[in-house]
């Protein structure tokens, strides 16, 4: 971290790489950051989440974002894709390509990444229930383009537990779903060493309404659950833990967020070492992506969301994030326009290049308030871990399953969401533009619209693929998949890759697996 480069303030005052004492950034338990030099050595990845319409539409947006200085890709899929439904499924009507990109077959995936060097760009895919299928398609597209799977870098969200707790994009029941998660972990551990097989996500838990402390606690508990599942599947903890990554929300209460990020690193390091026996330093270091809080954006006076996003982005950076998505100001109204997405990217570029906050690692460390907040976040999270450990009789994984079954997670989240709404409604909490300072321009122009043509185009595309493929080859591949799924010891990734290469659709693979695993239906609770 002292390599002769000089870092100065805007006025020319030289500054050190870090201030304050033990433990330093890069030292256990990594409260202050996972690297000694933090952003001096490497800026965070500016990874903007994008996806809408057809694969061609999103491919164009990807290229624009890379052109504008984005350094990684992040794919948003439409609801049918997220739920494992083909575009021509009855359930998909009206939702094809609306809230993300529609992917039905390998051909769509090929279009999505056409002209993008997959060995040079890292790609994140926000997909959970059908995650193994989309990973299989990505691997097959790369290999068709001459890029070996071992050279692919990126992240699969593949975090199914938080779906039952918050985002609700589940397909199969929890236990077979966790088997699929573990299959992906086993597969990437041996075949895709640069790939992050799970992005353990608090983002959606927070968006669904949880407190910061519960976002932290539920997310890390889910992380422990995946560690236990992978270890139970026969993997050595240090073989896979270095590739686990996290994804947090950066909301509006600045110091609470910074405390949350710092506490997350400390908790993970301690638990991985002390409870799960990890020895590799990389297993102990919690790496995370951050997204600003979509739920904090207001439909009223949408331009002021730019200021909210900037402050939330700053909290993520001061919390030591490894990558960042900044929300677009129009996202309370629709998917972002190209202009709005560019402003959002520029916002984090301002934080990176103009504010000077990158010069010093963990610049808030040592503040009595920030250190107290960090301790408090950790204390509150530990209470939840103790509850789940107790529930699961010594297993966090079992505790999480039971907490899903008994409504613990959804109940806590819904209670917190309602408390927040009450506070806003009573004026105890100010939301600028909503319950105060609400005289202003609410004019909303230039929203991104996805029209019905998208759905029609995608249906035509899917029909063509089905026309051109060998149905016999598809049937054979799906029969093999069903046979493999019936044996819990067989890794399903190879059979899924074979199926998608034969042009089985996403929905066909899902239906085949549902025949073995069943379908999850939530008990509605208010």
């Amino acid at each position: 971290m002292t390599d002769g480069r000089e870092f100065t303030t805007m006025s020319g005052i030289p500054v050190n790489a870090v201030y304050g004492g033990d433990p330093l950034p890069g030292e256990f338990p990594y409260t202050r950051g996972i690297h000694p030099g933090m952003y001096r050595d490497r800026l965070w990845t500016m990874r903007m989440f994008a996806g809408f319409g057809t694969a061609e539409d999103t491919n164009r947006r990807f290229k624009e974002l890379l052109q504008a200085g984005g350094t990684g890709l992040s794919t948003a899929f439409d609801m049918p894709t997220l739920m494992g439904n083909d575009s021509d499924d009855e359930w998909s009507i009206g939702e094809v390509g609306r809230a993300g990109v529609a992917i039905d077959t390998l051909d769509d995936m090929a279009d999505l990444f056409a002209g993008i060097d997959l060995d040079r760009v890292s790609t994140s895919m926000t997909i959970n229930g059908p995650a193994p299928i989309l990973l299989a398609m990505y691997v097959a597209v790369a290999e068709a383009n001459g890029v070996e799977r071992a050279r692919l870098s990126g992240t699969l969200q593949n975090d199914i537990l938080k779906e039952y707790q918050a985002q609700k994009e589940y397909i199969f029941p929890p236990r077979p779903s966790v088997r699929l998660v573990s299959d992906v972990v086993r597969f990437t551990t041996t075949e895709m060493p640069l790939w992050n097989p799970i992005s353990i996500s608090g983002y959606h838990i927070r968006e669904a309404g949880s407190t910061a402390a519960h976002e932290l606690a539920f997310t890390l508990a889910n992380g422990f659950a995946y560690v236990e599942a992978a270890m139970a599947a026969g993997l050595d903890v240090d073989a896979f833990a270095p590739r686990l990554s996290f994804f947090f929300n950066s909301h509006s209460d600045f110091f609470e967020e910074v405390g949350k990020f710092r506490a997350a690193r400390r908790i993970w390091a301690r638990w991985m070492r002390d409870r799960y026996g990890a020895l590799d330093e990389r297993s102990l270091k919690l790496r995370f992506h951050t997204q600003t809080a979509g739920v904090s954006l207001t439909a009223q006076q949408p331009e002021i969301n730019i200021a909210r996003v900037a402050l939330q982005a700053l909290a993520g950076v001061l919390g030591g994030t490894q990558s960042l998505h900044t929300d677009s100001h129009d996202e309370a109204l629709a998917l972002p326009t190209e202009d709005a997405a560019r402003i959002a990217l520029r916002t984090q570029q301002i934080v990176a290049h103009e504010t000077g906050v990158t010069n010093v690692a963990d610049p808030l460390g040592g503040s009595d308030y920030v250190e107290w907040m960090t301790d408090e976040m950790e204390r509150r999270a530990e209470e939840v871990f103790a509850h789940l450990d107790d529930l699961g009789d010594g297993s966090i994984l079992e505790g999480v399953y039971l907490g899903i079954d008994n409504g613990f997670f959804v109940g806590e989240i819904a209670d917190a969401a309602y408390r927040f709404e009450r506070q806003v409604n009573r004026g105890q909490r100010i939301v600028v533009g909503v319950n105060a300072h609400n005289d202003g321009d609410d004019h909303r122009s230039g929203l991104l619209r996805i029209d019905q043509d998208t759905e029609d185009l995608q249906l035509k595309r899917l029909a063509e693929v089905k026309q051109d493929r060998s149905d016999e080859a598809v049937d054979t591949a799906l029969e093999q998949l069903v046979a493999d799924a019936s044996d819990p010891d067989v890794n399903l990734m190879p059979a899924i890759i074979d199926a998608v290469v034969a042009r089985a659709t996403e929905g066909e693979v899902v239906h085949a697996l549902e025949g073995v695993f069943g379908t999850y239906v939530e008990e509605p609770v208010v």
Partner: protein
Amino acid sequence: MSAADRSPLRVVLAKLGLDGHDRGLKVVARILRDAGMEVVYLGLRQTTDTVVAAVEQEDADVVGISMHNAGHLVLAPRIVGALADAGLEVPVVIGGIVPDDDRLVLADAGVVGVLGPGASAEEVATCVRDAAASRGRG
């Protein structure tokens, strides 16, 4: 029927289609309960058929559908049409992310009220009461 004859209002709440964003609908359910209404919460992944069946069975006064999937222009007219086809004159309120321009389209399609982000508890309860009143209930 007057309010004295028939109260409280009974409201069926549902998410139509694949969209899983249920934070708003759950908050609305509690707001309506606090306002003295009876809430029949169907939850996620409902179809026009399941909503119509619930409305019929529960003798609902109002149907509230939450949508954050940008599918409202397709799905909202479908639910209005399905209720009409079943001979149920029950008003439909849509909540969620609905751009301004679409409000008129939804009104033309027979949607009685639209609640957007930031609506207060009073606005939510009033919207549902007005919807019921528009059909002579409440």
